[in-house]
């Protein structure tokens, strides 16, 4: 076991991790952030994506001990304390970009990582931004339009 500290959704955690544990296991099983999904376990589907130090990463390819000192954002960190949804979440709901929902938490985080860097993305840039996230259900069109809508909301100063 090894003791590490990391920040998840603004809160500092000090936890013991097994040597062979992945960040995905730590977030889901130890800390209870079950919005982080396990799909392929090999970096292909993106369902396990989180934002680490401002960058979108697949938590199935990171060992837990590597996250020492990192700041992580999961989907649980997006909505406000009073339960109001984040503008990106709101846009996904309004546009009907959610079907089974398995890809959704990571998709929303991919959108956030993109919009944080590029507040006015083109369709091409949106597609590129979510290219590491697979969705079996929606055919992506509604996801792309949600990200566009979310950009509008955010540029208007949040909804």
């Amino acid at each position, binding site marked *: 076991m090894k003791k590490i500290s990391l920040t998840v959704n603004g809160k500092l955690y000090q936890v013991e991790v097994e040597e062979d544990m992945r960040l995905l296991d730590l977030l889901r099983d130890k800390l209870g952030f079950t919005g982080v999904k396990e799909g392929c376990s090999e970096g292909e589907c993106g369902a396990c994506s989180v934002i680490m130090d401002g960058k979108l990463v*697949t938590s199935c*390819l990171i060992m837990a001990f590597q996250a020492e000192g990192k700041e992580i954002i999961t989907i649980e960190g997006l909505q406000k304390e009073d339960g109001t949804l984040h503008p990106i979440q709101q846009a996904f709901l309004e546009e009907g970009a959610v079907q089974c929902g398995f890809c959704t938490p990571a998709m929303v985080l991919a959108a956030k990582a993109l919009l944080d860097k590029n507040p006015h993305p083109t369709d091409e840039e949106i597609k590129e931004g979510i290219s*590491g996230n697979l969705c079996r259900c929606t055919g992506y069109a509604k996801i792309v339009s949600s990200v566009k809508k979310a950009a509008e909301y955010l540029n208007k100063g949040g909804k």
Partner: protein
Amino acid sequence: MELKEVIKARTLEEVLDVLDEKGEKAKVIAGGTDLVIQLREGKVNPEVLVDISDVAELCFIKETGDFIEIGAATRFVNIKESPVIGKPFKGLQEAAGHVGSPQIRNLGTVGGNICNASPAADTVPALLALDAVAVIKSKQGTREMPLEDIYIDRGKVKLEPQEILYAVKFLKPQPGQGLGFVKLGLRKALAISTISLAVFVERGENEVIKNIRIGSGALSRFPVREREVEDFVKGKKMDNTVIEEAAEVFGQVLEKRLATRPPVEKDFKPYAIKGVFKEALNKAWQRTK
């Protein structure tokens, strides 16, 4: 072997000390995008893992004298976005930009791309075409070798257990030089490339191709230089005939090399390379202007 100890290193000295002490029992982890999967499949079984991904001394892109030097733990995303590399060698940035997905580019490092020694490593053909040098460090000191010589076989590099790849470096672009990169993948994102090709050219007087270096990925057991094709082109005047003839030569070289490979590969690659080569050469030539 069971994983007993994991170390998050913050300095190069720390990394080299651990490797010196633990030798073969230890393994370096950077982005983890190759290694974590291999660990889980039991393909590698180190006793000690040393994380180098947050060692600042290994994350840099800078000019040192006549060279551009890239630290081994530099992420693909940083190469893609670097202002240091310069327009003529944009092909290297395109290679980094072609890797996987945003997530993989945010994690994966150039050192991991080299040391994993996959035949399909995308940045390696570009670095080979730039005639890059590998800078290797251990507690005992620093040594350098041509990047081309670092490969022993698929999945194997010439590093001692006490050593790490510290950086790669190549000469800064000179007037008249250019680098082109083309990747032929099955899917836009996440296709481990079926062919990736980088061509470096230097334009001489009267449109003569004064120098050419070709680096290929997924055409051999590890990324290689394509010297037969280089020798055919070098010194000739750049025109359509030369391009067409060289593409034919490349096709023939691959027909021989891949003769014992499965039909898909043996029939497809010698054919596909022609178009890929022409495109990469044209891109490189454009950039010499």
